[in-house]
């Protein structure tokens, strides 16, 4: 399905091919990314499109399935002859998708391939449209904890991460730093993506009585783990989970017992960049609520592609793609998450912020210069 409404000019549309996990493991964030792309297309088209041509999205559902994502991009590029492609959600799907794009010589800007593995594949066409890679997401939190006075500083930590490059990347990025700072790891669990029963893991964490619990989660697994921990009445001093707590569904999913839960984010609605003000406003008008991180990442992706197309002056398969790739590699793009530029592997050069649920709302607490609320430590009981 496309989103080509409002095509003012009668020109041939620029078809953007996307495969997204609208169902399956990544469906919650996947739908967020979809909304972000849709908002981008609408905003671009409302302004008359790119190169005078309207933008049309062609979105396929890959069901969070790495096999499907490959055949989706194969279909988009080979059969549907889309003009450009952009990435799906999550590292696990981004890597195989990027390879298809590369082998067809296409530019591949993606919103959600944050794990360091993405940049180790030798892709020449890939660019991650967000500020930082997974392992650096918790950098501010690690600094903050290690800077606490010794008597306040937690001494033990429990980690549970999904067997997923991104989720593990975040948790282990933090783990490395805390362990180096002398915080002992007492539980270190890995679970496959489709795990539904977390009571065993929760029992181990609870009985370890760790001061800190860190979940390398995507979405539903984070929710399940938190509920399982709550069922065992485990009360850590600090609880951090990647991705899940930033989702709009999160609070209801765990029965509103959210107080004090932490999560990293690359985006804030309050960021002062001019395009962000426009984005938040128009997005809110379109969808009724302000955008979250996933939406923003998709929007950023769109911005990068749009900038390249506008600058190079073409959008189709073939030689044009080489030019687009060249352009992105050599330039800095102003986006809703700030100015983005990339190294040779497509890795962005920026940092993430830390959010916390404070008084029933998720707010930025770190770094100090961006904070919306004070960091609460130790966390109140949940």
């Amino acid at each position, binding site marked *: 399905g496309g989103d080509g409404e409002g095509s003012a000019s009668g020109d041939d549309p620029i078809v953007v091919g996307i495969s997204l996990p609208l169902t399956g493991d990544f469906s919650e964030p996947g739908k967020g990314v979809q909304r972000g792309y849709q908002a981008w297309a609408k905003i671009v088209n409302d302004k008359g499109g790119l190169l005078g041509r309207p933008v049309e999205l062609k979105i396929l559902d890959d069901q969070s399935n790495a096999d499907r994502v490959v055949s989706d991009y194969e279909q988009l590029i080979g059969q549907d002859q889309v003009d450009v492609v952009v990435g799906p959600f999550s590292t696990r799907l981004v*890597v195989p998708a990027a*390879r298809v794009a590369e082998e067809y010589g296409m530019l591949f800007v993606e919103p959600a391939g944050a794990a360091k593995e993405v940049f180790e594949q030798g892709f020449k066409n890939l660019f991650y449209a967000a500020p930082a890679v997974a392992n650096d997401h918790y950098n501010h939190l690690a600094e903050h904890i290690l800077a606490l006075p010794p008597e306040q500083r937690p001494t033990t930590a429990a980690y549970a991460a999904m067997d997923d490059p991104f989720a593990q990347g975040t948790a282990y990025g933090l783990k490395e730093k805390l362990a180096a700072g002398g915080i002992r790891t007492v539980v270190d669990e890995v679970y496959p993506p489709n795990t539904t029963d977390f009571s065993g893991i929760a029992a181990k964490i609870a009985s370890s009585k760790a001061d800190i619990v860190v979940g390398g989660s995507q979405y539903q697994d984070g929710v399940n783990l938190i509920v399982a921990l709550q069922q065992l009445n485990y009360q850590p001093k600090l609880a951090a989970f990647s991705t899940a707590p930033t989702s709009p569904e999160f609070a209801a999913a765990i029965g509103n017992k959210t107080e004090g839960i932490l999560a990293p984010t690359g985006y804030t609605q309050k960021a002062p960049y001019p395009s962000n003000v426009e984005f938040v406003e128009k997005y809110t008008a379109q969808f009724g609520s302000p955008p979250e991180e996933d939406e923003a990442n998709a929007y950023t992706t769109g911005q990068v592609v749009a900038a390249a197309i506008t600058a190079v002056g073409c959008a189709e398969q073939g030689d044009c793609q080489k030019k687009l790739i060249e352009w992105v590699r050599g330039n800095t793009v102003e986006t809703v998450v700030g100015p983005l530029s990339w190294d040779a592997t497509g890795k962005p050069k920026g940092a993430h912020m830390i959010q916390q649920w404070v008084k029933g709302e998720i707010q930025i607490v770190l770094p100090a210069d961006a904070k919306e609320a004070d960091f609460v430590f130790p966390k109140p009981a949940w």
Partner: protein
Amino acid sequence: MPSASEPTPTTAGPTTTAPGGGARPPLVTVARAAKGIALLALVAVALAFPSLAPNPYILSAGILVLNYAVLSTSWNFVGGFTGYISLGHGALAGLGAYGTGLLVTKAGLPSFLALAVSAVLVAALAVPIGYAALRVRGASFVIVSIALVLVLLLVFQSWASFTGGSRGLVVPRPFPDLLRPEHHRVFWFLFVALLALALLVWWVIDRSRFGLGLKAIREDEDKAEALGTPTFAYKLVVFVISAGFTASAGGLYALWFGDLDPVFQFSILTGSYMVLMALLGGVRNLFGPLLGAVVVGTALEYFKVEYGNTPLHLVATGLLLALVVLFMPDGVLPAIAAQIERFRPAQHSIREVTAAQLREQRERGEADGVPPEMAAAGNGGPGAASARERS
């Protein structure tokens, strides 16, 4: 060329081989000619497809179908000959794929050497697996085969340090410089070659004494054993052959596709697609699984393109399987053969005679010196036709 033991109750039976069967009716010759032409057409299509495919996507979809064809033909070594229904063949393909991938990435073998070594390793591994699994029959075998997939899934998910776990394993490209359409073209021919080899081996076994022994196992294993067939050894050998081909298909897929994820490599769905395809085409037929793969594989791709955003392809698959099981348990090819049968003049192979007529015949026969013996031993009579019914 299709199976000589095809159950065609009222034809001249194993037409290709029946010696002294008297003059062959012209129909049979026509049928043979038709088969020859069909075979040639098949070869022509296989060779020309890459040039005919309108775009690389169609070619890649074709490769998927071919992969299915190799898999279900490989499955049919066990399922068709011995009647052991394995829902777990997906695991063997997965092992082949991972074996190839790991040999390339961890041992640094060249891609196709890795493929060969992996196929041999899986075949070797099939000896202990078969040794355990083939000891039980019927439902227990199905359960074991399902368990095989599930346990390997757990192992490959959990043993992340070796297999990459749920994060998957990336298999380096054998031809890193090829653009994707070229890459597809090369692999199309590789898959065609593998399929041809599998078909050839199946065909050789089908007509051999070994094959007849396997079929006897399918019909009545204890009886076969009592007649002197070393049933266990037979089953094991054919299981190993099947595993080798299945693993080769898996390995070739790994080289072609490049990304392995345990959830898909060790999926019951893969195994059941093999069963569905073989069953649909007809498990007693050389080309049955191929036909099934073309039908089901094409349908799957079609569903995906048409209804891509919905899981309705699962419903369609299920529906198809259910219909086949309920109405065509012998497959399409035999069903077609049976339809053709109906247009031939009815031949009653079991004579309908009363005991009195029988005695007359016998007396006449004895005069002629032909011993009609117990010619109508329990003259099947009306059963002749009724027995063609699936009972």
